[in-house]
């Protein structure tokens, strides 16, 4: 594999091909890139990490395209990570987000990377937040992370992102109850996209009423904005709202919550790997299968407790 430190230096220096190869090494969890992680983090420049999530068909890709256009007019270099689902059967994936991103295809100040979820169920891949950090190190700000089409449980992006934008569409009123405990709970900004459709105002009102009573993560309910991503309507106001959240996202309590989530995730991942690496792993699995041992005691034993 290529020389990691040299790739990082070149990527930070603006070489796009080096950045692309760096992202591949991160995504493939190439052991040669493990040692690079502290350096990548040391090289980050404080980009605003923005997650964009919502149900399939809500217009996430189109919204990310429109956001990119707006950020570009404000002189910002935009990094984009678009995650699509991997097939659980073949491991393959089709990633089509570039279709909607065509207008930025030749813009050298936009870097877009498609990622397959590779077996992760949280709406992003295991390495997505590291890829975002590398884009930050390469000078892109904001870094927009678009999740797979999300339902109730794909909340992982909120652990990664500083600002989580949840995209809804009009006339989801009846389903709002269903998602009440899910996506909306992690929203820092709520968007009702396709607002040229009937019922948009009513949906926004319903959301507003619901969130006002919900309490949620933070004291103040998130702003709710109407957009038409295809025409650009409302996108300026949306970027204003995202920008306004940037400061709030860096408050001590939110920074701590994010760090806690990242650490929880890393600990879970590292301890899983450590346990799997133990020579007695398979024998332990067999013991559980034969009902001679419960999984919790087994886990404690494997983790050396």
């Amino acid at each position, binding site marked *: 594999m290529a020389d990691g430190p040299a790739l990082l230096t070149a990527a930070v220096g603006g070489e796009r091909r080096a950045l*692309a*190869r760096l992202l591949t090494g991160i995504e493939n969890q190439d052991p040669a890139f493990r040692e690079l992680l502290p350096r990548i983090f040391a090289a980050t420049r404080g980009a605003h990490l923005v997650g964009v999530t919502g149900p399939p068909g809500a217009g996430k890709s189109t919204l990310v395209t429109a956001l990119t256009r707006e950020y570009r007019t404000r002189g910002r270099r935009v990094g984009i990570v678009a995650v699509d689902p*991997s*097939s659980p059967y073949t491991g393959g*994936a089709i990633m089509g987000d570039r279709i909607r991103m*065509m207008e930025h295809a030749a813009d050298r100040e936009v870097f877009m990377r*498609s990622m*397959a979820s590779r077996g992760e169920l949280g709406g992003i891949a295991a390495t997505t937040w590291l890829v975002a950090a590398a884009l930050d190190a390469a000078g892109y700000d904001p870094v927009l992370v678009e999740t797979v089409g999300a339902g109730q449980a794909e909340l992982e992006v909120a652990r990664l992102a500083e600002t989580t934008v949840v995209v809804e569409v009009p006339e989801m009123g009846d389903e709002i109850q269903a998602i009440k405990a899910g996506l909306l709970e992690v929203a820092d900004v709520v968007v009702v996209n396709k607002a040229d459709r009937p019922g948009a105002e009513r949906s926004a009102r319903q959301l507003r009423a619901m969130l006002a009573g919900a309490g949620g993560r933070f004291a103040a309910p998130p702003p709710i904005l109407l957009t038409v991503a295809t025409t650009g309507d409302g996108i300026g106001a949306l970027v204003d709202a995202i920008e306004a959240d940037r400061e709030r996202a860096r408050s001590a309590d939110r920074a701590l919550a994010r760090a806690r989530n990242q650490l929880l995730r890393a600990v879970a991942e590292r301890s899983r*790997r*450590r346990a799997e690496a133990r020579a007695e792993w398979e024998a332990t699995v067999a013991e559980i299968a034969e009902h001679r041992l419960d999984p919790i005691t087994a886990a404690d034993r494997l983790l050396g407790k």
Partner: protein
Amino acid sequence: MSDEPGTSEAQPRTAPIRVLIAKPGLDGHDRGAKVLARGLRDEGFEVIYTGLRQTPEMIADAAEQEDVDVVGLSILSGAHMTLLPRIVEMIRGRGMDDILIAAGGIIPDADIGPLKKAGIAEIFGPGTRIGDIARYFREHARQRT
């Protein structure tokens, strides 16, 4: 993200081959490209589909950012003799020497030789089985790590 030596996941874990499927030029028919994208997904590839009417520069940009192993160009417009060599040139010109570039679509036999000389590794005509394309990509795509 790395593995301690000797862990189970340190065993060779081959990352999926990444393929860019692009439609250069002006023809608006992408059924073949979509069928191929889906077929390759079912063969375990990670397929990035860029959509219609891509310029050579857009294709090279996408290949660069996505760091793909293979670029598959679907072309039905008849402009292959001008577009395909230009795309190869642009991709190679950016230092992407190890990307496999293949083409499919309606391409007369007489043009196949010159296109291969221009750097198109293989040309898959109508009726090619997706399994054959997948096998070719697996055998000829660069080896990672």
